[in-house]
């Protein structure tokens, strides 16, 4: 029975899912290209309108999340860094502190955690806002006024979220590394601040800064594009907005993890 053909209903189901996946990937790809095209071809046009929108989105995906990121930095410092520093000191392996911190926290946990935070706090709200605007005909109103909805609604969110994820990651990493040492210090770990900083600095190289900048900007861009796509790309009824939000959240999560895996490969190759 295991080697027999799948029942037609299974084939239908998988075929249907596969087609939906292909269509989604195609739609997201096209939307991303259109957004980038609009962003680079019209940047500077109607700057008076774009600037406050970008500032508002950057504040929303950055500044307004600072309290939450501060809490996460303290938590990350306690849970991961403080424990790791304490453990490495106990087994006399403090020389590995730098590489462990840089690999686990700076390259992986920090950016991914911030991306998840921005996705849950801003990304979900974006689908709801844009989906509702679409369902209520506000997007049609923009088109009637000759205003490009991509330029007015999507571009500020892409720039805002890319900047937001990048700056929050920098803030989270600094906060987490500092609070991590603080927790270790409170546990009487015999590690001087100078040694701790030297270890970290020794494990970081120039490429880390470039790749962290790229990775966090890509996370922000992916979250913005996917959430805007689900809010805008298809005609929505109000009752469909919640489903679109769930789909967008899941797809952002998958894409961020895949993007993270891609950057791990880049780290390994370079």
């Amino acid at each position, binding site marked *: 029975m295991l080697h027999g053909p799948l029942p037609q209903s299974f084939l239908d189901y998988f075929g249907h899912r596969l087609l939906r996946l292909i269509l989604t990937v195609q739609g997201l790809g096209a939307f991303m290209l259109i957004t980038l095209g609009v962003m680079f071809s019209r940047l500077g046009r109607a700057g*008076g309108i774009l600037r406050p929108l970008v500032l508002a989105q950057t504040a929303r995906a950055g500044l307004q999340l600072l309290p939450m990121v501060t809490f996460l930095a303290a938590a990350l410092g306690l849970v991961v860094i403080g424990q790791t520093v304490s453990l490495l000191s106990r087994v006399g392996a403090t020389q590995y502190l730098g590489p462990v911190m840089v690999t686990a926290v700076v390259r992986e946990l920090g950016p991914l955690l911030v991306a998840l935070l921005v996705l849950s706090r801003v990304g979900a709200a974006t689908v709801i806002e844009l989906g509702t605007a679409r369902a*209520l*005909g506000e997007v*049609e*109103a923009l088109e*009637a*006024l*000759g*205003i490009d909805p991509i330029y007015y609604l999507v571009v500020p969110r892409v720039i805002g979220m890319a900047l937001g994820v990048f700056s929050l990651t920098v803030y989270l990493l600094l906060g987490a590394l500092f609070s991590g040492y603080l927790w270790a210090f409170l546990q009487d770990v015999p590690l001087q601040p100078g040694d701790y900083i030297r270890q970290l600095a020794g494990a970081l190289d120039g490429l880390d800064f470039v790749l962290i900048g790229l990775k966090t900007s890509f996370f922000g861009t992916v979250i913005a594009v996917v959430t805007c796509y689900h809010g805008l790309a298809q005609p929505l009824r109000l009752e469909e907005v919640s489903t679109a939000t769930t789909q967008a959240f899941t797809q952002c999560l998958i894409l961020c993890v895949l993007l993270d895996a891609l950057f791990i490969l880049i780290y390994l190759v370079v």
Partner: protein
Amino acid sequence: MQATSTETTPPVIELMDADIPSRRDLETVTVTGVTWTVSQGDFWVIGGLQGSGKSDLLSAAAGLLRPVRGTQRLFGREMMPTYAHEYLAERLRVGLVFGEGGRLFNHLTLRENVALPLNYHQPLGASETAVRVEALLQATGLEEWAEQAPSEVNPSWRQRAALARALALKPEVLLLDNPMALLDPRKSRWWVDFLDQLSVGHPLLDQRPLTLVVAVDDLRPWRLPNLRFGLLEEGRFLSTSASFLLDASSPAGWRDLLAAELPEQKPAD
């Protein structure tokens, strides 16, 4: 029945044997076989009961909704239903006032909503834009509410703000989707008078007569001379004259729109 024009200028809006879909479900056709020409200077009133497809017809006329069959032209050019930069010139010649409060943007004040198309397309400098916005707010009686968000004012002011926003770029044709729905007779009167002024030439538009299409579900306030009437009934579009509407043999659906009171032709001043 097809509306014909004696004007020599090219038509502003042309729908030829067009089947118009619903904006909410593009696979459902709401109005079939529309053949309709709007010429420069026309003032059309399109009557139809709720759900008859008036909004869909206006969206199609404005080039925002593509007919599933037939052709649609704006100033002689076929339009794409979505935003496309190459159609911007034609799109900016058309103003569209949506119904149900005008679809203003709630994150902007009424003043910012009115200024939005001017700030985006930047036909004027900053100080001229401010002057133009002030003139639009004044003409529509919105100065008192200018700094409030759309959600903070009642629908009649929102509708006026949508009108001011649509007039900001000095369009050549204005389409209005049931702007007087739920208004009391006094406020309805303001709309009829203001649109009448626009049709003959208003200082806001440099005294240039505006081509107008108004979709309504009540024909009673429309007693202006030289109006052209279109009616939507059972998925069909029919154009006619006011005198034909007065005919007792008019279809029952048309008489529903007129309720107890039939429109009367008023002699031109």
